């Protein structure tokens, strides 16, 4: 019967398949996501940050940006620089609730740390629109509500002339923009300034805390209290880790390994509930300020907790003085203000994030959580000469390698 032959052929075929089948291989192509010529000063396991194609970071732009960052001539009246509100010893914050601009305008919001700003999904406290440092830097320089550096079209040529008069900038601009003949004098001068400042801020990396050493395997890097605090931080009782997660300790994160359109998180933590209608004090209404949507009232971006022990006071308006008070607000499930113009029970805010539920916590446990938060301080970052004021002794340390 011919079925015999079919069967024999069939098994022959199968045997051939078994013996002759291909070997295994998995090839990966990351499309250059892990390649950068820049010295990021960070461990290998951290994914590279997103850079806009029109402003790739270079050491020369970083160093030019560093000079501009610390230059008070980059303001209308020569009184402030970026470093006025972003001081290295405070992880590039300023220690005050709400800082003043060049002309005395009080900023409605608290100065933020610039550490690892390159990894943030959105760049400010409540604005979902600002995603590029190049866009954001325009605001403190040229903004009028509030006035920060106070530069306007009326005085921008005078401000530029002051920079053009400084000998140090001649070489710095030329090295940073070698394709341009007169990068400090041509029509791109302001763009060059902004791109250099963005490069300096993008290059501010902070991944060198005790916590990083602990996660890298040094079990002695954290004290017993900090380890207890870490477990509390990651517990379902405190729920901290849901918003303050990952290597930047915030869920507002992007990097080269992620798709560009990942969601930008904003949360209401129940700080206010003015008049019982869930309102936050204007103009600090958070995401709502831009979207006009009632559901966005009081929604702010989760902050990175790296260096958080250095960045008091806390919250978007600097209205909470200490980490202990921050933890107590969360323990209460929000903040109940019993008097004053902003009185209201934030615990009842309709927009409050579901993770902001009250929890019980002892004073010892609060101390443990604070010990953990203190372990997130990167002491090398706040003293590193790479991020320090280059004008103080420009002669002795050559900022251009």
């Amino acid at each position, binding site marked *: 019967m011919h079925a015999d032959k079919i069967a024999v052929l069939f098994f022959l075929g199968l045997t051939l398949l078994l013996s002759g089948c291909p070997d*295994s291989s998995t090839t990966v192509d990351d499309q250059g996501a892990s390649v950068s010529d820049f010295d990021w000063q960070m461990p290998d396991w951290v994914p590279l940050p997103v850079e806009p194609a029109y402003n790739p970071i270079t050491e020369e732009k970083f160093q030019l940006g560093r000079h501009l960052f610390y230059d008070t001539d980059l303001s209308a009246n020569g009184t402030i620089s970026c470093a006025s509100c972003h001081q290295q010893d405070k992880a590039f914050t300023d220690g005050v609730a709400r800082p003043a601009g060049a002309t005395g305008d009080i900023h409605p919001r608290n100065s933020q740390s610039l550490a690892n700003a390159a990894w943030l999904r959105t760049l400010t406290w409540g604005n979902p629109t600002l995603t590029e440092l190049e866009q954001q830097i325009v605001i403190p320089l040229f903004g009028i509500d509030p006035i920060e550096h106070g530069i306007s079209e009326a005085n921008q040529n005078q401000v530029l002339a002051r920079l053009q008069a400084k000998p140090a900038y001649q070489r710095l601009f030329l090295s940073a923009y070698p394709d341009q003949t007169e990068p400090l004098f041509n029509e791109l001068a302001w763009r060059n300034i902004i791109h250099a400042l963005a490069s300096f801020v993008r290059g501010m990396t902070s991944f060198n805390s005790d916590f990083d050493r602990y996660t890298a395997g040094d079990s002695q890097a954290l004290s017993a209290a900090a380890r207890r605090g870490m477990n509390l931080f990651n517990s379902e009782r405190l729920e901290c880790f849901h918003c303050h997660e990952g290597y930047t300790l915030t869920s507002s994160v992007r990097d080269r390994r992620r798709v560009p359109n990942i969601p930008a998180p904003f949360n209401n933590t129940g700080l206010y509930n003015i008049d019982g209608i869930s309102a936050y004090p204007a103009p600090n209404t958070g995401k709502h300020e831009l979207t006009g949507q009632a559901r966005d009232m009081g929604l702010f971006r989760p902050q990175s907790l790296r260096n958080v022990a250095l960045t008091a006071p806390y919250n978007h308006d600097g209205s909470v003085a200490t980490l202990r008070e921050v933890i107590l607000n969360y323990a209460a499930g929000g903040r109940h203000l019993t008097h004053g113009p902003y009185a209201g029970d934030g615990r009842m805010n309709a927009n409050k994030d579901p993770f902001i539920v009250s929890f019980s916590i002892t004073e010892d446990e609060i101390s443990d959580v604070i010990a953990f938060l203190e372990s997130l301080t990167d002491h090398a970052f706040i003293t590193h000469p790479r991020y320090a004021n280059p004008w103080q002794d420009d002669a002795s340390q050559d900022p251009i390698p």
Partner: protein
Amino acid sequence: MNRFLTLPLALLSASALAHTPPPSTAHRTTVDASLVATWRSASLVDDNAYWQVPGTMMGGHAWPAEKGAQVDEMNLGLSHRIDDDLAGVLKLGSHAGGMDDHSGVELEHAYIVYAPGPWQLQAGRMSAGFSPGLAQHAAERLASEAPLALDVFFGRHFHDDGARLAWQGNQGVSVGAEVWRGKAFPATDSNDGGAWDLFAQYQWQGTALTFAAGGWFYSAAAEARADHRYGGGHQHVPVAPPGQNTAAFPDIRYTGDTDIAGVHAHLGYHLNNDWQLSLQAEWMRAELDGTVHDAIGRQARLDGSQNGGWVQPGIIWRTHTFAVRAERLSTENSLVGPAAPQLATESGLANPDGHVPRRVTALWRWQWRPHIALRAEAIRDESLPAADHRFNIGIVWQQQIWSSTDR
């Protein structure tokens, strides 16, 4: 009429479309039970570790072999003939599985069969009929452990909500098609998920020789499919006993198509009343075309071709069966995207040493009593780069425990 009644039984035997002869007595209602318990000498992976065959994305119920005695599966089936060509089937099943909360009793089958003439229409929750290997349970297989290819490509067990239309001709040819909601790995039951398949089989029986062979094609669509063995829902850091470490399972998802084509054959030869020879084999090739991604916005395009299968020669002497099952799996994957290296590692698709998973099982099965079989196995398991050896001793109980006579 009687021919129809073989169908529920068939689901408890070799294949969903097996063609065992009809029982001499027509029963209206039957209850069947089976139990498989096995003692294994070693665990394939350590406690608090995950079984991930290099080069593959696993899921479903493909748990690793665990040391000690374990109930591999229990089944309790009820079939009830409603009419001459209409019946209902319910089956409860339980399978052993790694983590504590994954081994509950499940309603594996709940379906209606309508079988007019050569046609068979079946709808409800049921097992797949396209692959005889996939339809087999531990009680029906010679080996206690599911084939590696089925573990990797189908997550071991395939139960899904769906419908089957099959036709069986007089010349030993049967063909069919199935559509699935997509609850069974590698599909998902989301909006754009689901699966379907086609199959054909030819069966021939001579005086000494029996031969069956077939082919099938299965196509699944998945959306954000998780490895539900360890990941999927709300993720927690697993807790290990003091002094031991465990890592959180990376919850990597797959969105895309999985097309799998397979061929199978079974050859039996009756030497005399005491001796039989048997050769059984199934081979399948999976094409993966989709995106590997995770919750934090990392993505990589996956283009994968994976082959797997086994050959199982055996010799049967009276109630004793001696067989060897040789298995092989080869994977060829390409991941492209900024997060490709990390996602490859965390998904299990990475295969830095070009490992080719293999497994050889030598087994002896003794049908000790009509409903009780004993078996012993020796296994060299190279599903992971480090080869592992273990010995299994098991017992299989399979019986119709109750029936009502017709009318």
